């Protein structure tokens, strides 16, 4: 035996919600701010004098659990000074299709040269395009993501932001 009002109760709920503001977020038109410590696409950093912070030590590659970083180092010369130390990264590639965004590379880096940014929109039509080269990582990201106000969270500024 079915209570005829049962169905009406259901409709009442629907009716009640229909005039409320929907909580669905219209991505990509609307981009919800990510947490300040969200780990997205990597960035490589430079010193203020323009030299790259990365010296090509490969510690990030050693720390990487998914083995997606490849570094080939070379020696700085007076005519071609790329980093402050003796060596620099001639090739620095991250295969973002393999990256699990664990942030170990950031932790391993002795010079705070690599950090994980906020960008998460990393889809491409080809896998090859997901191999980010040094130039791409050094450039500021083309897409920017809104970030939630740091003050809302008990989150200290990352070192690289404090220093450079």
């Amino acid at each position, binding site marked *: 035996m079915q209570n005829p009002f049962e169905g009406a109760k259901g409709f009442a709920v629907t009716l009640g919600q229909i005039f409320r503001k929907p909580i669905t977020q219209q991505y990509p038109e609307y981009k919800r701010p990510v947490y300040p410590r969200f780990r997205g696409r990597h960035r490589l950093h430079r010193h203020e004098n323009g030299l790259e912070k990365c*010296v*090509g*030590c*490969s*510690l990030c*590659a*050693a720390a990487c659990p998914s083995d997606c970083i490849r570094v080939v*180092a*070379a*020696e700085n010369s007076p005519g071609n000074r790329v980093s402050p*130390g*003796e*060596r620099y990264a001639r090739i620095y590639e991250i295969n973002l299709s393999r990256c699990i965004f664990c942030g170990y590379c950031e932790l391993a880096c*002795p*010079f705070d040269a690599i950090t994980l940014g906020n960008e998460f929109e990393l889809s491409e039509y080809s896998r090859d395009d997901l191999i980010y080269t040094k130039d791409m990582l050094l450039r500021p990201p083309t897409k920017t993501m809104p970030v939630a106000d740091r003050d809302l969270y008990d989150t200290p500024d990352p070192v690289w932001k404090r220093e450079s």
Partner: protein
Amino acid sequence: MSAPPEQVTITIDDRSVSVPKGTGLVESALQAGIEIPVFCYEPRLGPPLGACRMCLVEIEGLPKLQAACTLSAQDGMVVRTSATSAQAADGQEGVLEFILLNHPLDCPDCDKGGECPLQDLTLRYGPGTSRMVVQKRTFDKPIPISPLIALDRERCILCYRCTRFSEQVAEDGQLVALNRGASSIIATFEDEPYRAHFSGNVIDLCPVGALTSTVYRFRARPWEIQNVPTVCAMCPVGCNVWATTREGKVARVLARNHPEVDGGWLCDKGRFAHDHLRAADRLTEPIRRIRMRGLVAVPWEEALDAADEGLRAAGASVCVAFSGGETVEQADALSRLVRQGLGADVALLPDDPDPALDAFRAPLAAIRSANVCLVVGDEPVLERAPIVDLWLRAARRGGAEVVTVGPAGAIAAPPGSAAAICAALAASSPPEELRELARDLREADRVALVWSGDDDTGGRHLAGLAAALELGEGSGAYFLPRTPNGRGVAQAWRAAGDGRGIDPSGDEALGALIVSGDEALRDTRVVALADRARFVLTTAMFMNEAAGQSHVILPGTGYLERDGTVVNLEGRSQRLRRTVEPPGWDELAFFAQLARRFGVDVDPWTRAGVDELAALPARSGTAPVVAAPAARGPQRAAGAGGDFELVRYRALFSGAAVERVPQLAFQRPAAEVELPGGDASRLHIATGERVVLRSGEVSRELAARVNRRLAPGVARVAEEHADGLADSVRIEKA
């Protein structure tokens, strides 16, 4: 045999261990499974130095901490390392703190980072933080002390391993310490570049990143590499090495201690010449000579067809020229193709060591413990088999009598007289100047005989002398072949057939010539044969050498790209391991396929079965009954009116591989002629002056270098600077 050494029992960290009397404390502790950390201690470099103080331990009954490396085990000794003694732990932490005071923390930059004893020991024994607030000592860096080695004085912890190697092992005396106290630095003597055959070993020895290889510099980090155990096939010694590869390329070669063969040392050719694998003119595809079109790259199958066709047309008129660098398996495949498949029976072998020598086998390490060492022949041992030179030096340091007899020997002998010397020494009444030596040889317990000459019959003469001296256990006769695997190639050729004809003399046309390898292409006899051959099949690594007269050229492989067996000068079979992939088929695969077309079944795979650290096979055969060899030297042209006998030697730093490594260019022999002191002053020639060497129509202008050890009337030139000169030359000032 002497009685086994007395055993003593000592207690280390409450663990009791029994070791032979005289064993060092560091080794004794290791036997008990306890580590005593060290930096400067390295037994191969001679007596302990006790400089770094890292090995401080507490010994019961002694008030102060003691350096364990300088002490040996005494019965009843009670030793406490940092594991159980707070005093020793403080001592080691203190030493590390002192070492790190001035050591820059540029580990991310440093090539040693990740495989650095200082990093490891700091982690285990060192202080967590630094208490030093003042400036660190700074130096210019890096300083290239040679094109191969970069020196970083900031990182140097002054363990004096490198200078001790230079002074006490290689005895080149080129690395020195300057200044004193906190400003002590390592430098080269008079700031000259470090040019020596064994310079690269100081890189291995350095416990920090102060001495680094410029070739390997920044190429890889320790966690990105694979180390493949293999054997160096650059000279007949066959040093055991690690080949370090990264991303499928050889990045460096390191010594891998085989105590019987190399003692953990490696010459610069073995260490640095690996970059020839990536030379610009390296062949990667088969090439075929096509009428009107010249040399054209073709697929492997087509090359196989062309080789098949060319060899079939030649019938049995085929000659094969070996390089001596092939593996036994390659030589076997080629020999069986030629002897069994084609029915031909002619080969040019680079070396032909006498099987009689097998009765006098001994490990190279036996040289060190010999009482008397005799070196005969015209070629410097250092250039032919460099590690043998180190063993001879070790023997001399140990008090052995090391006598060289030859044009530059302590006992002067004319060029090409090595056989006669052997005969004379074996005879019952040797001539006056050899009498003392002959007596010493007969009276000595342990004798090492070394033949370092170009005479193919040398093995027989040497074996004759060895038989006459009745060499027993602990003594050895070492014939130094020209080529890395000359001994193995000759064995393989013999095994493949009934052992007839070797020397292709005569001048009739040849059906086909198979040239195996780049070194064979440089042999003038091979070039002459190629002129007579209707079809020339060549395997070569490099285009320059191969182009000339070949009809089909197959890309060859380097020794680091091969799997197989090589036989070194001791007669020891050692396993070559493929460390990186060759660009195409290797020779063994190609010749196995080719052989199958001629009905010979050759296994294209290398049989496994030779151990990494192969033991020297037991002495085989009985002592040969060799009559005293006839006093006959190698075929030297009779004096053609010249006033100097010309001795040519093959420099170690020569050949196709070395030429393709720019960093090794400075090691190649200078364009100079060595002249004896007396003759030089008679002709008023001083070192550095230009002189002209003439024989017939040929003349060469070279710089003179006065060598007072040369016998009068002898001039010595590296082979590559003696092109076209006869055995007898006139020399005058330019």
